[in-house]
């Protein structure tokens, strides 16, 4: 065993090495003990002293922090005893270890360690398939030896699913239980324990943690993975870490990117050293069309069929933009393939759609094997995956040899002038086109068919996709930054600072929500709102709900709005699904309908019915309802810790629903629309003057004059989704600053509000008179 100072420092961790049945109990006791000064003997660590007396050697003892070599680490990895749990390694472990040793990163492990030792910040470039996401954190683990320092290693991922699945994989590789030594933390779900040494987490989650720990003092090394995706949270984290690195010289930072534009990261991080590892890729031949295409969906379907007819074995990956388009293309390909098999003896082809809202079971199907030939000696079968750009970086599907790239993807764009965040089909960037092409060369040399001309590729596509920070509403970000203690948002050193107008909008929105005062300082409400992992409007709505005597109900609604749509509407049973939805419908709006459905779900659960079956019968998504339930529990905990009362109006009270409708406005008063004229279906949003229609999914049948909406959807038409009827008097009462009639521009909304103001005044004077 190593010397005793190490013991004292790492009490919490070294005890964790002993994994037995009552691990949690054990560590709890040690945790309280760890703070007390320990002299020589700790009864709870008796077993370890015994070990050292018996000259027991942990495989990690020979290692010295920040001075390890590959040889030492490999020796520890090869030993029969798992150094992290002190349990014998399983058979499975050595099998996985073999494959790990074959990964491209392993060859450069020593090089990596040398650089890691000599520099505080390191930029690591490894193409997909190099093994960087799973291996680098483990290399760091064997170097940082966090059980001795008591400081964790964090590895961020842009996506929840990736954080979960990679953590699982690494737990298997290290032969430990997920949630013990290796864990993950994502919004509304934390699977880590007191023993955790390596933590995978979403970038947003690390940002949330930083709000309470400005120095990130829990960590000795932070790895930002997939930095090339430039998500909002990763960008903010990079700027923060750049600051923290200056203050905390003991914090190591690794920025990992999959693309070679890493120079940008290098210059941003004061010229940090760069290590590049080649991926396991094969050459990809690229083809362009000679002429631009009239209809890219049609062209992509034709290309897929052409590949199927003329190219040798190998699976196809087609990139399209959205669910509708993908389902349409799948249908068309299926029809044509049937014809091809009948007419020209083509091989069978399985077509799988892949998009974010697809249920996980169906998403999993893309990993199925390609179908067998129809008869012995017949043409080989293949599978064709029609995917959105989630297949571009986040998912690795082996066996893809052909990629069809029409050059479009759906991108989120925020317009600060109209305050509309929308998903628009836009041309991809050159970097993204290269990424797509690279997907064809994972298993063997492949081909990429681009449905545009080479000239268009060179001239019309932008170099890099705009980072998310330039395309998003920053209200939430600004609130987080304020909570993170960033005073000067103008000179905050972001890699790509957002447009001033976007920043102004965010500040103003927060100002109206009373999260920031007029000088841009965080208010108490703002500080409280930032505790919730929610949009500021939702958080404010939740915090102010006790004033309307309905915090329990608002808690449910908030949770339901934080998960995907709970109403299921399968294509083959639309009518029945709509009828079922009508059962839950509340005439005053969709928010209340959501609440009714949730109450019915809970009722069914409590009455002992099979909730899954019940959901299926009522066309509700069991998965999303249960995750809403989980979210609700999490939010409830936050509310309780901050002493926000949980109250309800009695259901019999005639104001039960009115209170809820009013409480909605406390957060969403900036998302209100007024009907244009008495017999029109068109609404105009307040202050932003956008003409919108109510989304056809609504249950609201009688057209109300004023509605509050949850989201703005821009498709072929502009829609507002999830709407509830409100009364204009409430607006003046609940958000008097925003609805100060004098600040409105001339128009129907202004005159309508003026009328309402006068009416209210008259009523008050009448009341005053009668009172006297």
């Amino acid at each position: 065993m190593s010397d005793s100072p190490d013991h004292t420092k790492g009490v919490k961790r070294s005890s964790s090495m002993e994994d037995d049945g009552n691990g949690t109990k054990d560590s709890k006791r040690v945790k309280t003990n760890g703070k007390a000064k320990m002299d020589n003997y700790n009864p709870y660590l008796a077993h370890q002293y015994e070990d050292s007396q018996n000259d027991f050697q942990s495989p990690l003892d020979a290692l010295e922090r920040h001075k390890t070599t590959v040889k030492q680490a490999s020796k520890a990895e090869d030993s029969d005893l798992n150094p992290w749990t002190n349990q014998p390694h399983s058979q499975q472990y050595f099998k996985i270890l073999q494959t790990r040793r074959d990964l491209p990163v392993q060859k450069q492990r020593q090089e990596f360690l040398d650089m890691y030792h000599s520099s505080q910040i390191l930029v690591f470039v490894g193409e997909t398939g190099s093994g960087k996401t799973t291996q680098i954190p483990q290399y760091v683990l064997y170097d940082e030896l966090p059980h001795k320092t008591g400081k964790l290693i964090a590895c961020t991922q842009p996506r929840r699913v990736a954080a979960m699945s990679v953590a699982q994989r690494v737990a298997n590789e290290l032969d430990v239980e997920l949630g013990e030594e290796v864990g993950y933390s994502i919004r509304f779900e934390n699977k880590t324990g007191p023993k955790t040494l390596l933590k995978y987490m979403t970038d947003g989650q690390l940002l949330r943690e930083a709000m309470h720990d400005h120095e990130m003092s829990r960590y000795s090394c932070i790895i930002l993975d997939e930095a090339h995706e430039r998500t909002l949270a990763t960008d903010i984290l990079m700027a923060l870490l750049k600051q923290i690195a200056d203050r905390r010289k003991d914090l190591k930072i690794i920025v990992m990117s999959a693309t070679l534009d890493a120079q940008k990261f290098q210059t941003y991080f004061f010229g940090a050293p760069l290590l590049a590892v080649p991926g396991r890729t094969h050459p990809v031949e690229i083809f362009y069309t000679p002429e631009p295409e009239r209809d890219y969906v049609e062209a992509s379907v034709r290309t897929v069929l052409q590949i199927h007819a003329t190219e040798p074995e190998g699976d196809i990956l087609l990139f399209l933009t959205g669910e509708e388009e993908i389902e349409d293309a799948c249908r068309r390909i299926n029809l044509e393939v049937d014809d091809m098999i009948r007419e020209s003896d083509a091989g069978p082809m399985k077509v799988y759609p892949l998009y974010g809202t697809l249920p996980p079971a169906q998403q999993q199907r893309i990993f199925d094997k390609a179908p067998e030939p129809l008869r012995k000696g017949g043409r080989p079968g293949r599978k064709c995956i029609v995917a959105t750009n989630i297949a571009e970086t986040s998912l690795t599907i082996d066996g893809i040899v052909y990629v069809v790239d029409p050059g479009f993807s759906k991108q989120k764009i925020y317009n600060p002038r109209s305050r509309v965040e929308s998903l628009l089909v836009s041309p991809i960037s050159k970097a993204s086109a290269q990424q797509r092409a690279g997907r064809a060369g994972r298993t063997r040399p492949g081909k990429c068919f681009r449905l545009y001309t080479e000239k268009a590729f060179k001239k019309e596509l932008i170099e890099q996709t705009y980072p998310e920070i330039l395309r998003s509403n920053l209200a939430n970000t600004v609130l987080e930054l304020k909570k993170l203690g960033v005073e000067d948002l103008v000179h905050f050193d972001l890699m790509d600072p957002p447009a001033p107008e976007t920043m102004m909008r965010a500040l103003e929105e927060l100002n109206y929500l009373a999260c920031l005062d007029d000088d841009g300082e965080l208010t108490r409400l703002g500080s409280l709102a930032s505790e919730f992992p929610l949009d500021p409007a939702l958080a404010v709505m939740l915090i102010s709900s006790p004033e309307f005597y309905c915090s329990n109900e608002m808690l449910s609604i908030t949770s339901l709005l934080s998960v995907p749509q709970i109403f299921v509407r399968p294509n083959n049973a639309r009518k029945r699904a709509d009828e079922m939805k009508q059962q839950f419908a509340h005439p005053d709006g969709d928010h209340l309908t959501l609440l009714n459905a949730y109450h019915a779900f809970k009722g069914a659960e409590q009455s002992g019915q099979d909730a899954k079956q019940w959901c299926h019968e009522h066309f509700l998504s069991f998965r999303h309802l249960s995750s809403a339930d989980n979210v609700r529990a999490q939010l409830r905990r936050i509310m309780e810790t901050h002493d926000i009362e949980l109250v309800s109006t009695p259901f019999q009270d005639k104001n039960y629903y009115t209170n809820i409708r009013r409480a909605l406005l406390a957060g969403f008063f900036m998302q209100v629309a007024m009907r244009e004229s008495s017999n029109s279906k068109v609404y105009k949003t307040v202050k932003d003057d956008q003409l919108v229609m109510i989304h056809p999914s609504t249950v609201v049948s009688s057209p109300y004059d004023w509605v509050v909406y949850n989201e703005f959807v821009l498709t072929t038409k502009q829609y507002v989704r999830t709407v509830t009827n409100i009364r204009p008097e409430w607006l003046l009462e609940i958000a008097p600053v925003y609805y100060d009639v004098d600040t409105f521009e001339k128009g129907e909304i202004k005159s309508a509000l003026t009328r309402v103001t006068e009416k209210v005044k008259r009523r008050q004077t009448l009341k005053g008179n009668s009172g006297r």
Partner: protein
Amino acid sequence: MATPPGADDDDYNEVPLQHKRPFGSGLHRKAIAFVPATGDTKSLTAVPAAEAKRPQQSVSDLYRSMVLPHDNIKTHSSLGAPDERIMCEICKLPLDSLAAEHPTARRHETSLAHQLCLPHSHPPSAIDRSRMGLSYLSAHGWDPDARKGLGAAQQGIQFPVKTKPKDDKLGIGLQLPKNLPAPKPKAKLLDAGKVRKLVKEEKRKAERIRQQLYGGKDLEKYLGLGAVR
């Protein structure tokens, strides 16, 4: 505001375009008669105006020097050594004192070369100055008129990213010719009500055309009232 309607129209010139004076011609009329400073100072600012021909000539000289063989140059640069000439501070082109002898000739200040070299002033930003967001940003040192973005070196983008919604399936790089034949209207299914409406509408149109053609007063007088109806 208190100004009567149309008062702000003063901003617009009512002078027809063809009578508008060229930019900078005001300098001509309101020329101030400067007096050269006493002594032998070659102060540049003291020289009131200069002829525009000189710089033009020297530009042409430069061109010639590039195009023609070297001995041809001297024949054209008629003036003395360059150090004798006075250079304009702004456009770095020589001024000429001969200007005084040609009052009608264009002054140096009005020459294109000089005008182009003047520092360009941008119009102020159109952002509403009363916004809370602006007051925060300017309190932290962002100037809305400076044409700068945010960031450590104010290197950020100045305007939000723009994209236009795409509601067709046209591939990348396809430019449709502008005078495309309009797509054929789809055949409509009509019921009795719609047909009745259509017929009515057609009748109304025909009636109007007939009115326009035959409804003239003199024609009515000539043919008699009943003829048209």
